[in-house]
């Protein structure tokens, strides 16, 4: 059983995952930020692999990707930085990136590197289910790397069931069909969608992402799923001075352990 399943076995509600871009704001800030997030109370982490054409991302993550690439971040360098990951971080860690850099690195080599450094899963939004099943599933499973699929309000029930079958880890529920960094507006339709998924009693845990930026949206999302993922709001924090010092307050603020004005 990998760390992701272990986590969800122990913790069923209000699981908090935080996303940030590797190599941003500093080329070598990746593992320091990961360690600080764990200390601050994040339940697991998603490290973004920067890509030149991140078409599912809004301006905040686009900007962080562009800067990380300019800083010199590459897939190869990221795996080098992650060599000491498991000495410093014990929570589950996922890599999130687009398919092209993974293809250039080599999918087999990518899965093997994940296993080697202790990365538990990957989220590749533009890797289709068909290609994953036909070409890459064996390689992921051999290395015990979970492939995380996305579900949107428009994903059909039949497809959700198929995704549930193929998943081992959790399923990423998009709060709306949008790029990253929009604010969450929970309308009646969104609540219906969240409730519909909840009532499907999927075998995999679910995490809600896109638009989760504060305690209000985090706790709202946690009513319907096992937890939620914060991305752009945290990446925005990294743009500020002394960001390392602000990480504990940010995480505690999202969890509602302290009130943030």
């Amino acid at each position, binding site marked *: 059983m990998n760390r992701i399943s272990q986590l969800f076995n122990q913790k069923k509600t209000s699981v908090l995952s935080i996303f940030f871009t590797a190599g941003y704001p500093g080329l070598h800030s990746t593992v320091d930020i990961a360690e600080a997030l764990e200390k601050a109370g994040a339940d697991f982490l998603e490290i973004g692999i920067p890509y030149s054409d991140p*078409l599912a991302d809004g301006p905040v993550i*686009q900007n962080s990707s562009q800067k990380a690439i300019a800083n010199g971040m590459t897939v190869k360098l990221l795996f080098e930085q992650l060599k000491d990951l498991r000495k410093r971080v014990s929570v589950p860690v996922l890599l999130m990136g687009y398919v092209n850099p993974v293809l250039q690195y080599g999918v087999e080599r990518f899965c093997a590197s994940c296993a080697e450094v202790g990365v538990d899963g990957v989220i590749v939004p533009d890797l289709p289910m068909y290609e994953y099943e036909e070409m890459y599933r064996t390689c992921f499973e051999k290395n015990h790397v979970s492939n995380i*699929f996305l579900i949107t309000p428009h994903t059909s029930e039949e497809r959700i069931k198929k995704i549930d079958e193929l998943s081992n880890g959790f399923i990423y529920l*998009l709060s709306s069909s*949008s790029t990253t960094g*929009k604010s969450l507006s929970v309308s009646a339709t969104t609540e219906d969608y969240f409730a519909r998924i909840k009532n499907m009693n999927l075998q995999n845990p679910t995490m809600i992402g896109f638009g989760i930026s504060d305690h209000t949206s985090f706790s709202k999302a946690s009513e319907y799923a096992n937890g939620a993922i914060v991305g752009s709001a945290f990446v925005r924090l990294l743009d500020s001075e002394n960001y390392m010092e602000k990480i504990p307050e940010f995480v505690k603020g999202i969890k509602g352990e302290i009130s943030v004005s």
Partner: protein
Amino acid sequence: MSYHVNENGYFGSFGGAYIPEMLYPNIEELKRVYSQMISDPAFTAEYTQLLRDYVGRPSPLYLAERLSQKYGASIYLKREDLNHTGAHKINNTVGQILLAERLGKKRIIAETGAGQHGVATATVCALKGLECVVYMGEVDIERQAPNVARMKMMGATVIPATSGSKTLKDATNEALRDWINNPADTHYIIGSVVGPHPYPDMVARFQSIISEETKWQLKEKTGSTEPDYVLACVGGGSNAMGMFYHFLDDANVRLIAVEAAGKGVDSGETAATTLLGKEGVLHGSRSIVMQTEDGQVVEPYSISAGLDYPGIGPQHAHLYASKRAQYVSITDDEAMEAALLLTQLEGIIPAIESAHAFAYLDKMQFKGGETVVVCLSGRGDKDLNTYMKYFGL
């Protein structure tokens, strides 16, 4: 060998639909409605009628006598420059706007490089009374100002793409992001044979009217449907795919695709994708992409905004890999000289994109008497600023 798409959306090992889940329902809906539509006689009738009465098809196949004399071959120009809006792009937008109607979409988005596809999209939106939003790289907005004005005059909103190289690649990213955020009411009219399946095949079929007409026109003029050579320029590759389409299975017809070498293939400022690219995924399909070792997409360069793209359509990648077509490249300077030559020998000012195809004639060795068809994909009005600057006119 099949040069066409298979049931999984692949041309050989290229193609597919590498899209985030947010676009999955749109793509499925598109596939379904598109396949119903192309076998519907009512669609064919409407499409054909619009191409005839609105676009002005068939476009002439013109024997360029003075050019032929110069090179020692019979050179025919397929005059896509004479279409309404001045380029081949409208063949596709007419087809896709009829599709949008059948999809029940009220809002149309598009990306554009040279502005020809943006204009062709704004045109059909005006024709059908649909809202139109065009994404265009900031750099391209500057160098193709007349086309921006035309789009605005037709009621379209032109949104500058300010990320990355601020050209066609980035405009395409912005259009895809718009579609992700507006999946229900919006249809994305992609302008080239790129993007996730079914776009490459669909755009190629809408453009295939170019080679369909060429065949019977050539038969009328020469007695044979088969030329020795067919030439077209390639950015994403829509005019080339349309020009090649009905010749793909004619093994005797040599197909030549001309890419933009920019300031030279080794200059670092180029768009010669097949020479410099590697297999990869860009804008939803697996193809050949100019990229770094780490898989970051390289920013291309060409003097012509329409060829300034770091990939090629997946069907082109398949034609390249299977060697069915030959891919060559032409520099900015060679294209500009060829444009001037065509203007002075034939009285036709070509788009700089199309001039790349003409420039390759100079590199070919003719025995004499060969039949050559060159796709004159667009007219040069939009490029006057660039011509004036380059030639000091």
